[in-house]
């Protein structure tokens, strides 16, 4: 062990001396290897960033991996059971979705059925009742916008990481303050587009409400939904909408509870709802697992391409390494003469190429970190997922591994040559 340590240190000391003595050659080796290592780093970083971007989009609609979604049928009594159970709990948030029309009273909204504003979902112009009978909607089309009103018992971002859209123009719902009489709404991008396009009065109609509500818009977020949606605090909504009407089948409401994986809420809620004669379904979000195969294939293809570029870099190191050993025949013969074992001579050459590989990896990682910061600064406004993007350090690790592998592959043959130099080279000189 001690002998190994001595040889390792000797190889490192002599290798560093060799690099310092041949700075230009080291630089040339680094240049030839740089693109290869950079390619590996960029592919790995790109794959990680793409994975995050893809996952971020999925998380917006499905929720963070591991989140449990409990779907409750909209039946009388379900809402109060859910709200009683999750109230004040940080590990679960109830979400009730209702249709709401904001704008002129007594008119049909411009996007009936909360359709996206640039799409025509073919409104029938009829009102249908739970018993299946329909009759023509007597209301004329007017300046009103229909949204999917989403009432929340707590900060849903713990489960769905909504990205603030232009946060300078607004804020997310604050659950720490007293509930306001005029419910505060946070719009999604599609709803914000609708209210930018149509100037409507601030009057909100929700079926079952005791009066028309005057809402106030406090922010805009990107929730990935193509339908216009408005988020509201549950306690502010229930001031105007009795709890027992929230899940009235006549209101068309949807009830869902988002929970962390290990909360006792699931068991309590399931028992209570089953007691009410309701059947609940639970789904756990596993987006990452479902996308892993697809991402792995993409990563593999790009890594294969990066590997080819790396091989060219290895050939460069090999070329410079062989030339350097050829120039240092006397030095290596002399080192053997003073008792340096062959294995250490090989170790010296390998140490030099490994250090060169590591230096190159450090340079490539530095460039990619700088590049990502630059891209984040320049394109961050257009692509929100690039904002505050952290450098994926697995890409850095891949760069170091690539540098080490290139160092070993490029230094192996020169190392063997160095070890075979006869001592007689110094005697006959």
């Amino acid at each position: 062990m001690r002998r190994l340590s001595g040889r390792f240190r000797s190889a490192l000391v002599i290798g560093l001396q060799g690099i310092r003595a041949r700075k230009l050659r080291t630089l040339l080796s680094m240049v030839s290897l740089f693109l290869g290592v950079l390619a590996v780093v960029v592919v790995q970083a790109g794959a990680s960033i793409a994975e995050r971007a893809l996952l971020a989009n999925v998380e917006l609609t499905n929720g963070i991996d591991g989140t449990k979604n409990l779907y409750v049928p909209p039946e009388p009594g379900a809402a109060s059971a859910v709200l009683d159970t999750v109230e004040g709990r940080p590990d679960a948030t109830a979400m009730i979705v209702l249709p709401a029309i904001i704008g002129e009273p007594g008119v049909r909204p411009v996007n009936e059925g909360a359709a996206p504003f640039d799409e025509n979902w073919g409104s029938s112009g009829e009102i249908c009742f739970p018993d299946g009978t329909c009759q023509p909607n007597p209301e004329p089309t007017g300046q009103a916008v229909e949204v999917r009103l989403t009432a929340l018992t707590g900060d849903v971002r713990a489960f769905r990481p909504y990205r603030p859209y232009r946060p300078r123009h607004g804020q997310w719902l604050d659950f720490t303050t007293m509930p306001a009489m005029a419910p505060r709404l946070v719009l999604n991008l599609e709803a914000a587009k609708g209210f930018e396009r149509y100037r409507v009065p601030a009057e909100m109609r929700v079926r079952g409400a005791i009066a028309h509500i005057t809402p106030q818009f406090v922010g805009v977020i990107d929730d990935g939904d193509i339908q216009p949606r408005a988020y509201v605090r549950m306690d502010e909504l229930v001031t105007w909408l009795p709890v027992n009407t929230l899940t009235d089948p006549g209101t068309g409401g949807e009830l869902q509870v988002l929970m962390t994986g290990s909360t006792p809420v699931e068991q309590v809620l399931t028992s209570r709802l089953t007691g009410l004669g309701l059947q609940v379904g639970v789904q756990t979000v596993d987006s990452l697992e479902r996308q892993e195969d697809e991402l792995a294939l993409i990563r593999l293809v790009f890594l294969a391409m990066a590997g080819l570029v790396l091989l060219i870099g290895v050939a460069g190191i090999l070329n410079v390494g062989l030339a350097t050993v050829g120039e240092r025949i006397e030095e290596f013969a002399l080192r053997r003469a003073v008792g340096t074992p062959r294995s250490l001579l090989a170790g010296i050459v390998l140490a030099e190429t490994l250090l060169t590989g590591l230096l190159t990896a450090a340079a490539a990682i530095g460039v990619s970190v700088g590049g990502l910061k630059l891209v984040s600064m320049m394109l961050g406004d257009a692509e929100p997922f690039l904002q505050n993007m952290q450098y994926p350090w697995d890409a850095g690790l891949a760069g170091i591994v690539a540098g080490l592998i290139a160092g070993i592959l490029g230094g192996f043959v020169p190392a063997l040559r160095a070890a075979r130099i006869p001592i007689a080279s110094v005697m006959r000189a």
Partner: protein
Amino acid sequence: MTVLIDLTGITKVLKGQEQDRTILSGVDLTVRAGESVAIVGRSGSGKSTLLSILGLFDRPDEGSYLLAGQDISRLPERRAAKLRSSHFGFVFQRFFLLKHLTAAQNVAMALVNGQGWLPRRERRARVLEALDQVGIAHLAKNRPARMSGGEQQRVAIARALVRRPVVLLADEPTGALDTETGTAVIEALLAATTRGCGLVLVTHDRDHAARMDRTLDLVDGVLTERVRA
């Protein structure tokens, strides 16, 4: 005096394309502690081959080689490298100093050879001691390009001495130097023998050979002792 080197019947044959050529033929040689031996002979007489065998760079085809009583005629390379490090110091006609290293670093090269590891402080002390023995401790930080030929050869001698060898092997160490500088180098080598180190000097210079305890002639692979008047 203790016998350091004892060669008996050493023969070395170079394989040729048409016929083999005998370089050394039954060479007998004994070197004792503190003794200096000069080997003289014409070019191609086998002096360097003999030195290669003495320094374990090469193996004899026949004969035995005892180092301090231990037979080392057929050593594997790994053990030979260890013995070269622990028992021998080498000085060559060309100095073989690494130009990118200082004098001290060139001397330290013999200590950083994978045969054990000395702490930096001890290494520095040994290097300065070796440079001091050859009288150039003040040049420790100079690079070879800034030193004269004589100074460079002294650095090479310091490199040979730094591991405190049992035997010093010098292959025409004054060949590239003027007479005065060459004499100074020989004195530096002889100084090592006063500390009990054996010295084998291969030289063409009769004057330098005369300063050794014994002079041996190598003629056509046969070693004979010259009788001094």
